[in-house]
């Protein structure tokens, strides 16, 4: 459980600041166990182990065990008219009340996948079930229970916010009062404004409001915070968390890694239409090495440090002055390097110590797949 609370050490000018990252602990007992086992079998002197660990890329069925799967995707494929395979056989499931994030670079297949889950198109292969139904063929059974926020608005430019909401409410079973959802996303004062006059962020929030109108059991959010400023993004995150507390299942796509890290109970990283890694954010990053970097003063070289393997380092690069170390034992490596620096009287500039993050995993996957291709 401690991995997510690792201290971040920063050196600002000459003063050393140690800040504890107050991130919520999402890891479960099952996860801690597998992480411990992973660390235990990991020899520290072999750079080959900088590759992702065994948990990456394997679906974590344990977390959904005993719960109802609200979304089930099996070997899903999507092929566009020109023959382009956007989705090449992906499998995952989302349990009731979970927040599940689909991550990926542009063109990885996120939107193509979500559109199949929303029932906007029929898959070229495989199976989708949302609340036990085929969202494409059994539209009438699924739609009243889902809310959808598309990547781009799709509202007539000449209608006002209130007119748009009224129209959507008239098309929604058991709709909440329009004013209530507009209030929820902070658009209450814009009710008389035409959609064309809204900013990009306001349009995203209108889209979110309409997705929430029918009190959906399952919410699909395709890049919900793209175009929002930092504050709007935090507001949206808080809203999504409140929805989860109320039992809503949320599937979202994003290319903001911190969004997935903060919000998602589980996630899948898509790369070229396939799932490259999946699990809890901690699991996906677990197989990734942590990083430490610093700059050596003049006259000092990498070779002056104690043997790297003794420090638990599994990989390194250096351009002479700046040293970058990769390790699965961040505390051991950092302690050893800092102790060495103190004894040797060396000032390490630009000291940066960070535990494995999704960014690490994300970039690693892109690189590995690029190298494999």
């Amino acid at each position, binding site marked *: 459980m401690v991995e997510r609370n690792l201290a971040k050490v920063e050196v600002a000018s000459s003063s050393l600041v140690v800040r504890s990252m107050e991130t919520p602990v999402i890891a479960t007992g099952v996860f801690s166990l597998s992480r411990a086992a992973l660390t235990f079998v990991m020899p520290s002197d072999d750079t080959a182990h900088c590759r992702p660990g065994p948990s990456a890329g394997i679906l974590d069925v344990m977390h959904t065990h005993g719960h109802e799967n609200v979304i089930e995707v099996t070997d899903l494929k999507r092929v566009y008219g020109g023959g382009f395979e956007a989705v090449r056989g992906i499998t995952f499931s989302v349990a009731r009340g979970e927040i599940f994030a689909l991550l990926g670079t542009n063109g990885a297949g996120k939107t193509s996948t979500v559109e199949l889950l*929303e*029932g*906007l198109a029929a898959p070229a292969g495989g199976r989708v079930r949302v609340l036990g139904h085929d969202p494409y063929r059994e*539209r*009438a059974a699924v*739609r*009243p229970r889902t809310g*959808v926020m*598309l990547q*781009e*608005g*799709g*509202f*007539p*430019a*000449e*209608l006002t916010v209130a*007119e*748009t909401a*009224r*129209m*959507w*409410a*008239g*098309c*929604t*079973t058991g709709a909440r009062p329009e004013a209530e959802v507009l209030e929820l996303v902070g658009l209450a004062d814009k009710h008389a404004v035409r959609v064309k006059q809204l900013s990009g962020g306001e349009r995203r929030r209108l889209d979110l409001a309409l997705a929430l109108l029918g009190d959906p059991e399952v919410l699909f959010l395709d890049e919900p915070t793209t175009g929002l400023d930092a504050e709007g993004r935090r507001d949206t995150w808080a809203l999504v968390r409140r929805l989860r507390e109320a039992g809503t299942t949320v599937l979202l796509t994003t290319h903001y890694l911190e969004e997935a890290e903060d919000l998602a109970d589980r996630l899948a990283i898509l790369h070229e239409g396939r799932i490259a890694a999946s699990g809890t954010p901690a699991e996906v990053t677990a197989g990734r090495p942590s990083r430490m970097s610093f700059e050596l003063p003049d006259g000092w070289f990498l070779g002056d440090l104690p043997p790297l393997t003794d420090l638990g380092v599994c990989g390194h690069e250096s351009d002479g002055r700046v040293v970058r170390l990769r390790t699965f034992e961040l505390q051991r490596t950092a302690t050893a390097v800092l102790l060495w620096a103190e004894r040797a009287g060396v000032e390490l500039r630009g000291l940066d110590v960070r535990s494995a993050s999704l960014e690490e995993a994300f970039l690693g996957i892109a690189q590995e797949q690029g190298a494999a291709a």
Partner: protein
Amino acid sequence: MSSPAPGTLAPSARRLRALARAELTLLGRNRGVVFTALVVPLALPFSVRPALDQMDLRKQGISIGAAMLTAAIGFSLLFAVYTSLVNAYVARREELVLKRLRTGELSDPEILTGTALPAMTLGLAQALLLCAGCALLLDAGAPKAPYLTLLGLVAGLVLSAALAALTASFTRTVESGQVTALPLVFVSMIGSGIMFPTEVMPEKLASVCELLPLSPAIRLVRAGWTGQLSVSEALGTLATALAWTLVAVFAVRRWFRWEPRR
């Protein structure tokens, strides 16, 4: 696309009303479309009047009033319903509105119908007003078989909307809609008896023109006034209208594009 089960009619009507209401608001805010829809059907019949005067319509049993009324209703179908709906369908698709609507509870037929309702209502209101106006002002007299006129109006409205959806299927932008809508407009104006009654054409040509999409509607509307249509003729005309409607609905289900091409 399944047919509504019992008990779903009320929600369906509620959805249609909500969509139609929004679409009516949009129609009212599009000045170009409003102008075309309201003014053209009223103004154009007067431009064809000199031509009508030179034709020997009396011999066909058609009064100038009835001929002008038919022209006005025909123009109303073409401009207030058909072209304005091509515009609406394409604009909603390009704005991704149709895609957004499909993520909700509306069925595909509901989306297309709800979008069409305001224009169809406008067309119907216009036609009824024209009928009343002609009966009172243009000495066209009272219709001899008003039910035929009404049947013709319904057939014309439904087919105009269906053909608009079909035209929108292969129209990429609102601007190109001004071109893709032209063939039907021209063919109907000349061949379907809108600008002048098909009765003045050579017989062979007339019998071919009777098979054009909007010909049955126009023929029924005029027959309602003149009363010159036997039961078997009326049924044949209705069958043609029905066949076109079925073809258009099938083609729309098969080829309608819900999202812009990328």
